[in-house]
């Protein structure tokens, strides 16, 4: 079955979004709620690429509350996505730093330590294993892959939301997918040998 492109950002959306950010900055909580709807998946994905899944939902709320408090400091409304992404990564870094010894900070998370919300079925366990492998990839690859494969965002949407160029998102998606394929094949080979 051929699936259609998931989401293509309408041309006028960025203008509409700038208005939402301006309104939110002026205290319009409903506008901020709309921004949450648009960016929650990005924030969730960035966090999922870095912290244990069980912590992600709470941290999403924390990130948006922090953004709400700091929104007055955002100078260019058109860069809301890049700004929010940085706040999210900072918050994840803080979590990482507090829970993992210094010398381990730059090491990828071991796939065996990956957690799932529920691990009571084979499918859940397989999903947890795959997520663990994705989280073990280099930082540049794991974020776009999680936004694409977990959050269901398209490449153009990832670029638009995070403020990155199409080129860098595209390259990281393809290279990351290639590396993920290799790692999954290695895992499968290891499992069959065991």
């Amino acid at each position: 079955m051929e699936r259609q492109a998931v989401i293509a950002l309408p041309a006028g959306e960025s203008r509409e979004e700038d208005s939402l950010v301006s309104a939110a900055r002026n205290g319009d909580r409903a506008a901020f709620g709309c921004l949450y709807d648009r960016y929650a998946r990005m924030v969730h994905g960035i966090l999922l690429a870095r912290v244990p899944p069980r912590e992600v939902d709470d941290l999403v709320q924390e990130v948006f509350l922090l953004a709400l408090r700091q929104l007055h400091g955002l100078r260019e409304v058109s860069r809301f996505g890049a700004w929010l992404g940085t706040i999210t990564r900072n918050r994840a870094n803080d979590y990482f730093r507090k829970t993992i010894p210094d010398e381990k900070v730059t090491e990828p998370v071991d796939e065996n330590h990956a957690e799932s919300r529920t691990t009571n079925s084979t499918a859940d366990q397989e999903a947890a294993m795959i997520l663990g492998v994705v989280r073990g990839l280099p930082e540049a690859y794991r974020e776009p892959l999680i936004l694409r494969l977990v959050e269901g965002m398209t490449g153009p949407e990832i670029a638009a939301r995070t403020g990155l160029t199409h080129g860098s998102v595209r390259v990281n998606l393809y290279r990351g997918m290639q590396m993920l394929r290799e790692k999954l094949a290695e895992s499968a080979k290891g499992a069959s040998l065991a």
Partner: protein
Amino acid sequence: MKDDYLWDGSGEPDPEVQKLEEALGRYRQNQPAPKFDEITQTHKAKRPRNFFNWRWEYQLSAVAASLLLAVTVFLFMRQRSRGNPGPSWDVVRLEGAPRVGWHSLGEKSGPGKLGIGQTLVTDSTSRASITLDETGRVEVDPGSRLRLVTNGPGRKRLSLERGTIHAVIWAPPGQFVVDTPSAVAVDLGCIYTLHVDDSGTGLLRTTMGWVGFKLNGHESFIPAGAICQTRPRIGPGTPYFESASESFRSALSRFDFESHTPAERNALLGILLVDARKDDALTLWHLLSRVSDADRPVVYDRLASLAAPPAGVTREGILRLDRSMLDAWWNALGFGDIYLWRTYERDWSQPSRNAK
């Protein structure tokens, strides 16, 4: 094409990608938005209504009381803002007996406070950490002197006079800055270590995110895994990845900080261009604006061979140092969005007058 399916979900579906989507979809974000609008409604409900239906004596009393309250609050806030520009940083002893001003933090003493103008000093056997809830945490190694310069809302500035700090910052980018004798370090969302020796020479190593380093118009961006040296009167050198070859790092240090003849400089540049790997695009991008007009074409060609310039970036534009093209190329390298730096560096580009 299958690649199109990975990119935007169009074209022939890739079964492997579909399988991954299906498996991982269970982790997808599914929390509804918090009730931000209800917060507004709650505030609105508290507002007094039907004021114009009150008797005129009550209206007059209410207006007078409001004016009195407003004047009192204004005077109070003005006094407060003069005496206390921001919350103090909490200081916790980690080892030994670090000192804040004249106050020594011993084993039995509780946490201290670091106020504006105060200096935290650790001797050769003591360590401390300072924390501000909305900004981050800084661990201070033995043999350090760290001063709090400013602490206003959205503007936290420390001065590291000597020693080593490890900073973990969760404040939005551009709000946390550290002066050193030879450069200003602006946090752009990261974890980093900054060392300053007695001569004022500095070394910044980024663990996560990236940091901007600037002095006298010289600017360096240091992403995770990279290092940048800085020297008094010269400013920040060219950043490089720790994994670069020994000959590359040695040539770069001499290129940045030693005086040499044009022939020696050409030889050093030659080593850098030959030894550069794909990751060293970071270093070559910085060199574009640090080499002479005559040398820039060879740096451009080598960088373009390692990391092709994105659409809209031309050789001519880069050779004349067109800022928007340089920025676009930087963004394409994937180390961080340069918008953050261009937005925030204006406020911090020179060391504080209070910093030594």
